[in-house]
């Protein structure tokens, strides 16, 4: 259990890993918007190429990238099927009884699939695979800091995130210990009906909750003793600086967006 890794962070030490996390969040938002701009074949092709380049730059093994797509595979297939069968058009491709597939439907299905893959892979390349959860939290806290004017508790949310990330491994270890203790007393977690297995979890959850509350109390006291008093007047040890690379990356992605708009206008192929 000591070896568990949080999130999907994959330390390959690429250029993307070294970008300022704030810039990566900004770029990820930009990339998502770009994904929705694409309208014709040229634009989608451009999008697909940009995603492949992103994977290449991140130096993350393809196997891991593919495993990241797996959870959305069902959604992808579903959208594709829906688009394939229900998008009408002029050029009939195939007809059998009540099923009619149009060329337009085919294109639409392909576009949708590309869009979903690019969304998932793009954001995970930029964020989850190349940025640790804690860096991400930190980046969001700093980016959203202006919202404090509107009384949004940005610092408090970030602190909650940090503490959650800090305590997940601790609580997992604790769960293992409790499970072992209950097993030693004859508890059975692996057989029986779903209901009886769910019931077997109660003797784990109750001690876990009790201990979590005790930990929370201890931690609150310890934080008070270390002069914690919310975000007011707090400084940070690490000061984030944008470097040249960050601006280069931003420029590349802005250019991609511009390119996509041009492709929509002057490109060819089926347009949605």
């Amino acid at each position, binding site marked *: 259990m000591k070896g568990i890794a949080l999130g999907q962070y994959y330390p390959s030490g690429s250029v993307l890993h070294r970008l300022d996390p704030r810039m990566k969040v900004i770029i990820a938002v930009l990339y998502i918007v770009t994904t929705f701009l694409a309208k014709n074949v040229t634009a989608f092709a451009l999008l697909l190429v940009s995603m492949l380049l992103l994977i290449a730059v991140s130096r993350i093994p393809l196997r891991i990238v593919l495993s990241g797509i797996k959870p959305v595979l069902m959604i992808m297939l579903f959208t594709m099927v829906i688009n394939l069968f229900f998008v009408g058009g002029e050029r009939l491709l195939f007809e059998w009884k009540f099923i009619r597939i149009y060329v337009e439907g085919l294109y639409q299905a392909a576009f949708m699939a590309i869009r979903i893959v690019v969304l998932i892979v793009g954001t995970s390349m930029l964020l989850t695979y190349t940025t640790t959860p804690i860096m991400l939290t930190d980046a969001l806290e700093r980016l959203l800091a202006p919202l404090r004017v509107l009384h949004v508790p940005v610092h408090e949310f970030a602190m909650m995130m*940090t503490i959650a990330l*800090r305590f997940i491994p601790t609580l997992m270890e604790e769960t293992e210990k409790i499970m072992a203790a209950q097993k030693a007393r004859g508890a059975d977690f692996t057989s029986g009906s779903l209901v009886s297995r769910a019931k077997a979890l109660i003797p784990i959850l109750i001690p876990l909750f009790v201990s979590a509350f005790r*930990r929370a109390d*201890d931690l609150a006291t310890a*934080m008070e*003793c270390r*002069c914690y008093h919310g975000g007011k007047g707090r400084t*940070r040890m690490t000061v984030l600086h944008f470097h040249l690379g960050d601006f280069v990356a931003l420029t590349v992605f802005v250019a991609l967006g511009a390119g996509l708009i041009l492709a929509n206008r002057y490109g060819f192929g089926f347009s949605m």
Partner: protein
Amino acid sequence: MSQPFIHTEHLSYSYEDGADAKQMPVLHDVSLDVARGEYIAIIGHNGSGKSTFAKLLNLVLEPTDGKILIDGQDITSPDMTDDDLLALRRKVGMVFQNPDNQLVATVVEEDIAFGPENLGVPSAEIRARVDEALAAVGMTEYARHEPHRLSGGQKQRVAIAGIIAMMPDCMIFDESTAMLDPLGRREVLEVMERLHRERGITVITITHHMDEAARADRIVVLDDGRVLRDGTPEQIFSEPELLMEIGLDVPQSAALVHRLRKAGLSLDGEVGTPEACVETICRAFAAREHNTLVNG
């Protein structure tokens, strides 16, 4: 040493029992002075109020009665502002029992930076303080590690570094070695005593381990919320019956010395640590042999 660093006057604390709103007394009339740079151990069985006493010193708990002066400032006065409270907690740092429950960040150095960050120290200075604190507890090579992968003793050293980075005058160790294995205990004790020795930090350690208490300059025995004894380890451990009566152990070396004295051996000199004890006993036996040779 005109004024003591910590001065408590008739300090009492009781909490309200939720069930029947009864006042449950924990501390009675504790008056104690701790000099700057002193190394003192507080011992007592469970429920003797030793932890409560520690928590009153930096106002994690507020006393029901009595006065506390830290560095000449009355921290129990109603004029205490929030800033005064922060200043107090900076001055009097606290290390707790469970190393897991006092670390906040997911990276060692960020955790150590937590205190100075809260105090609004400029970034560059925090960096310097964190590096210095890491070196002080011998954890420099673990700066970028995740706390949950460290051993208990290492985690506790990180917690200590987190306090050192706030540059305290006094550190309270609230049973900080209780959950550690012997190796971890030794690591923490070494760091604690080095801080006392090299930086002149006032150390108050609350402990169940009598051999740890024996290393302090002075021991305060609490029983049922009252100061039962206050003296040097020698003085305290010369009354083993009393300690046993209130449910405390006596270090084996002190027990041995006591029994030897009872058996008629005159032992003068240091008996605080096992090493000192060995020396004193050897010297006593050598002297006795010498006497028998001379007289016989």
